[in-house]
């Protein structure tokens, strides 16, 4: 069997690439498993009792779409917005395509708020996106979250009682849940309604920064069911 030098080196390179990709994938899998395990321990007993507004928000560790790890308690001292998302959901698309969600994200992060978009869609779901694909989608939407967290096992979503996409939670600098509910006040899939709806996230953050209590601290989230792993 004789191979020309060039094809030989090419095949070696290909093999090396494959090996690197495999090790990358396995490393990611190991990290994800470890983090899922860690999150399970961290969240522990709260697994079935979601926090009510005014209670301590459960801590968690998650890996974002770029492989970086984030721990909620690391953001102590800052406001954190958790946004449940799934690009397959028409309600999520309503708020992204219209530019409403990216604008809300930008307004929040410009004030120093940490915005974490969380995807709790299970792997088996038809609209599950691989981390890289989700990252790309966010980019094409000009989205501006601090990080997009992968929660395929639904551990974080269950801990918070996230039911819909979108579903918004705001955690204050002390780690208290201060808002749980919808992105805005008109439950519909019509982009036209955004204009007349009250953006609850802007309102809550505005009130918090103005030193006022949050007037609508618990609202009805609307959208698609989070596609949890059953």
């Amino acid at each position: 069997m004789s191979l020309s030098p060039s094809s030989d080196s090419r095949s070696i390179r290909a093999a090396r690439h494959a090996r690197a990709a495999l090790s990358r994938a396995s490393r990611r899998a190991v990290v994800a498993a470890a983090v899922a395990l860690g999150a399970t321990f961290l969240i522990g007993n709260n697994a079935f009792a979601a926090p009510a507004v005014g209670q301590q928000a459960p801590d968690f560790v998650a890996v974002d779409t770029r492989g970086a790890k984030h721990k909620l308690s690391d953001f102590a001292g800052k406001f954190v917005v958790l946004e449940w998302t799934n690009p397959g959901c028409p309600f999520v698309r309503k708020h992204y395509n219209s530019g409403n969600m990216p604008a809300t994200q930008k307004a929040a992060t410009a004030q120093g708020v940490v915005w974490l978009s969380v995807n709790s869609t299970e792997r088996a779901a038809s609209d599950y996106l691989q981390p890289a694909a989700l990252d790309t989608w966010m980019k094409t939407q000009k989205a501006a979250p601090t990080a997009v967290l992968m929660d395929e096992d639904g551990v974080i979503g269950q801990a918070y009682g996230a039911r819909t996409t979108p579903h918004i939670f705001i955690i204050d600098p002390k780690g208290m849940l201060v808002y749980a509910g919808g992105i805005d006040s008109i439950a519909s899939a019509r982009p036209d309604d955004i204009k007349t709806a009250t953006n609850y996230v802007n309102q809550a953050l505005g009130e918090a920064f103005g030193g006022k209590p949050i007037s609508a601290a618990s609202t009805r989230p609307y959208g698609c069911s989070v596609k949890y792993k059953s």
Partner: protein
Amino acid sequence: MPAAAQLASKPGAVVTTPHVRAELVAHAPEGVAPGAPVWVGLQITHQPEWHTYWKNAGDSGLPTELNWTLPPGVSTGDIAWPVPRKIPVGNLANYGYEGTVLLPVPLEVSSNFKPPLASLGIGSGASALDIRLKATWLVCRKECIPEEGEFTLALPLQGSTALHKAEFDAAQAAQPQPLDKPGTVEVSGNNLQVRLEGLPAAVQGKTLGFFPETPELIRTAAVSGKDWTQSWQGGAWTATLPLADQRSASPTTLPLVVALAEADRQPGQPIAWRAEAPVSGTWPAAAVPRAEVSPALQAALAANAANAAASISPAELPAQPAGTFIVALLGAVLGGLLLNLMPCVFPILAIKVLGFARQAGNRSAHRKAGLAYTAGVMLSFLALGGAMLALRAAGAQLGWGFQLQSPAVVAALAALFTLIGLNLAGVFEFGRAAPSSVCSAQAKHPIANDFLSGVLAVVIASPCTAPFMGVSLGFAIGLPATQALLLFAALGLGLALPYLVAGFVPAIARLLPRPGPWMGTLRRLLAFPMFATVAWLVWVLGQQSGIDGVGTLLALLVCMAAIVWALTLRGRTRLVIAAVLVAFTAVLTAAIGRNVLQTVEPARLASSSAGQRWQPWSAERVAELMGAGQPVFIDFTAAWCVTCQYNKKATLADAEVLADFDGKKVAMLRADWTRRDPAITAALTSLGRSGVPLYVLQAPGKPPVVLTEILGKNEVRAALAAL
């Protein structure tokens, strides 16, 4: 994916999408006339596994919306929603419809209705009622598709329209029957106690499904028999249902539907009943917290905002912008410098003055002493900072000065200062009293001595947070470990700076007097600040361990002093007396030593140290007072914090200041951090600080005002005047 059914240019009565077939149907068996029964409705036929929603959609989804356009004189009622079914979606649940459902709406034809002229009528030329419907519905399987459709129907005025009689009859049969009695709903804890009476006898003993019409109230996915229970008490049906964790409704009346299980339904018999039950009891308070932003945080947020444009990767966000960090470093150096002026550092000042005098004239020794002292200070700061970060990483709620929250540390410090005091007073010399090589090393090597005095300075200084230092430390907590440690090192540098400069600038060293007999006098004099420190520490321990702890500590200190004295004796006497004293001390320690480490109930402290004016602090109490519109002043304090005690006795006891507090009706709360208290630590953290003293003036609707650590009378009065 198409968001809406793409309709033909001319709408008709049927819209077909990939997921449903929707048709506008009517039922007017007696024609369209005032008083005649006229029903219209949207009939939705779902693809298998797909569903649309009831008026309360449950955990997700949206109810179908019908928007009618009708000629004048004709109006519609509400949708007569047929009984839904519960559709579990994993650990969530929805209320909705699968298969075919008809959502009927009654039409009200008033006498004002003028039938259009036959010639203008639609269809066959006979006069008709022109009905237009725009409907939107959300159809879901696992995925959800919002759809909409426009429908038109010309309903003949005369004659009978009964083509869909069977469907309307079925929808009628699927209607819940109104119950004669409204029933009762009682909120008890996190449950709803529902009691319904007047259900037909045939239903009694059967298991019913429960459908509240108010959304966001109960845990929709709760499973009967597992998460919620129901039972029959004679003819009354009772149930206990869990409230939703994130409830957003607190109605005074709860419209609800109970339905027979599908297997129990009999043709021709009602399958469901509806009641509008008054709600008694109080809904668990959905605490509406004030999401407070401290000025320190506000400043950090503003800095973040300024740098947001330059932010590169979201993963790097936790890192602070470089500019802010340099400012924090400078602040830390300045804070450390000011720490020298704090009363708690005074004893160490005494030691250092003596040290310099001893080596007067020896310039290189001064230089070495300065460096050794600086190293001791900085390394101790790094060690303390490292310990704090490590404990914090392990989840402990700690703040600056935390080590003095432990009675053991306080007792050990008291012992240490007693030893130093005895040494200064001339009771013993380290070299002679202790045979251990450690002590002789300390005495023989002035550099080691200086290093250790640096360590001591930090140990003593740590309970005091000077101005600038509080902010720097609060800032350090949120930083990555290396940056945080740099900040701690900067603090140490600030504290050591005066000695370092004195060591290197001969002019300063030359100002010191020459050695002589006066040194012995000064040395004995300096024993008293040491004993004063012991007195203070004993008082601190008294706050923590009570009178028994203080008594025990003093007894043990006496024993220790006696042992030290015994060791200065010579020959066999030394061994005998020392052995007896050591044995006695050991017995005493075993018998009552535990008293020192015990902690007394905080309540005793609250009642003793907080007078009538001051109330004990709690986050709830603050929220309560602020809710009632009252401004609050919070004194974050601790027994071991000397600055706090000074402020308490000076500014906060000043008659004019107190009159101002009364004039503005300010509630005064004291948060005592003498012992570990995670709630107070959390409150300090939220204000951007990690230690006491901290004084905060808060008024409803205004950002909290943080006052300086050394509380000035004028400052407090100005802050009160600004309320």
